[in-house]
Structures are given as C-alpha cells and as structure tokens.
C-alpha cells in the first residue's frame, strides 16, 4: 500500500474510483491494476458486521462451449460436479460452474492467479470460447453477519447461510438487475461475491449501500477481507 498512488496513474481501475476517492480511500497497486486497500483505520470489525468491497480490478475470466469441461480438466482444474456450485483450486482460485459447459474463474484477494494466467495463455481446442469477465462484469463483495439480511431486501432468492451453502451460486435478479451471487466465505466471515454488468456497477454500489444503512454497513477495503482469511 502506497498512500501516494492515485487510480488515474494506472491503466486498470474500477468504474467506482471517484466514489472511492471521495470516501478517502487509500489504494493498493498490483501490476497495472489498483484496488482500495482501506478507507478507515479499523475495518476488520466493520467487515465482521457488514461491509461492501469493490474487487472489480482483481483477475477473473470465463470459458464456455461444449468442449470446456474436458479441456479444463485436462488443464488440471478440479471442476464442481454440478452447475451453480464453485470449487476452490490449490492456488486459491475459485472455479464457478455456471452451467454444464460454462465456467467462471475468480482469483483470490492477492490480485494474482497462476491458474487464470495459465488458462488465458493456453491453446484452446474447438468449441471452447473465452469470455472477458474481468471487463464485462463488476465484482463486489458483501460480507459480515448482516450480509444475508441486506440481500433479503433486494433479492427474492433465500441466501441465508442456513439455506445457501458456502460455494453455492444463485444467478438471479439483484436490485432489479441480473447478477451472479456466489457465497465464498473468508475463514469464518460470511461473504457473497456479486458479479453483474460492469456498466451498472455505480447503480448497484449505491443500491447496496442504501440497503446496508439499516444495519450500519459501510465500504471496506481489501485489507479487511485479507485480515479475515
């Protein structure tokens, strides 16, 4: 973390960077990307209660097509056995199976994913098509003991931890826009990764913060999530 880094100094920044700057964020740089390190001094406690983080600049990629599952397994990916579940790989990358022939791969909070780098550079056989999920979709993380209560205000699917297991995925409507919701707990911290159209992220960010206000939720940076691992 370097307090002197500004989002406009890097080529890859979130659409929300102006909001982050207004909130007094300090940023962390990894390669050509930048993400919020923290806003306030003690965000670990806030994350335990209710926090929202913008992870849109972290690595992720998608692949789809009839040849995708076999190709991914050849490349050493441990696939979830059924759609709408995710499994963690040895390097920390999460592989989400969105249908029988579509995968979404999500890096961990370090900003590096050896598996994603390897698959993005690998030769692909016929009927395997890459999807630029890092560009098409934003990535927000809603965490804490009140996260499910917040989601219940804007989503019709029951996402409470007792009904929606860690690793489970719901592709549904969230605050009236399409979203992929993946429960990916961080240690004991309940956490929902939310992927939606990147062009709608400012609306979704504001809507979630509005829904969080009742439970005294606020934005948190990467540091708060990493400290809970």
């Amino acid at each position: 973390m370097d307090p002197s880094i500004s989002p406009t100094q890097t080529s890859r920044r979130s659409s929300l960077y102006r909001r982050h700057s207004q909130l007094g964020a300090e940023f962390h740089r990894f390669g050509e990307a930048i993400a919020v390190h923290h806003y306030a001094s003690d965000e670990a406690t806030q994350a335990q209660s209710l926090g929202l983080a913008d992870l849109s600049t972290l690595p992720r990629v998608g692949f789809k097509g009839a040849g995708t599952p076999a190709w991914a397994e050849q490349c050493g990916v441990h696939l979830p056995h059924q759609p709408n579940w995710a499994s963690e790989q040895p390097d920390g990358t999460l592989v989400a199976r969105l249908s029988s022939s579509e995968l979404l791969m999500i890096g961990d909070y370090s900003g590096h994913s050896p598996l994603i780098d390897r698959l993005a550079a690998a030769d692909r056989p016929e009927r395997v098509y890459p999807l630029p999920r890092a560009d098409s979709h934003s990535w927000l993380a809603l965490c804490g003991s009140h996260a499910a209560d917040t989601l219940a205000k804007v989503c019709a699917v029951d996402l409470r931890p007792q009904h929606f297991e860690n690793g489970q995925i719901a592709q549904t409507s969230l605050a009236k826009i399409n979203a992929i919701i993946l429960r990916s707990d961080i240690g004991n911290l309940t956490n929902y990764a939310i992927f939606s159209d990147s062009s709608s992220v400012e609306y979704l960010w504001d809507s979630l913060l509005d829904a969080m206000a009742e439970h005294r939720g606020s934005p948190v940076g990467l540091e708060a999530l990493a400290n809970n691992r």
Partner: protein
Amino acid sequence: MKILTCPLNGPRNMSEFTYGGEYHPTPDHADASAREWAEHVFFHHNTAGVVTEWWCHNASSYWFLAERNTLTDEVLRTFDCDQVYNQRIDFPAVTTPEARK
C-alpha cells in the same frame, strides 16, 4: 408473483424470464421450400391447449423449453433444450449465384 422453474437455476420469479415464442421443429435446411421456412420463422399456430414454448432465464442467459397450457396458464414441465437438439447441425456455405448478391 408467478413462479417459473428454470431447469438450470430452479424456481424463480416470472420477472426473471423472457418469452421466446412457440417451439417448432426446425425444417431440414437441405431441402426445405421457401414456404416451409417462412412458416417456421413467421407463423405461429396459436393453439388453445398445451403448447411447447421457448423461455430464457435472463440472469444466466439460459434458453430452455416449457410445456404450458394456454387455456389455464399452467406450466406442465420445463426442460433443457438438449432433449430436442442433441446433435450439431452445420450449415454449408451457400454457393449459388443468387445467394452471393
């Protein structure tokens, strides 16, 4: 709100779905007449009774088929379209002079 059961995602509010029209078996593209193609693309049977329809779950862009009774609006079942489309159909490049214009 009405609930429709997506074969991939399970029960969801009807507002998450888009109607895609009646399902008709695709004519054999190698020897279908212009009339057959026109009927396939543009004409609907508009049956009063059980019909098979295309539906799309918007959040996952997933197309599937549903059997619905248009008189009672009861959905009898929904199923993955690979039960109907279970082999790849390749369309060869058109080579007639008319098609090149």
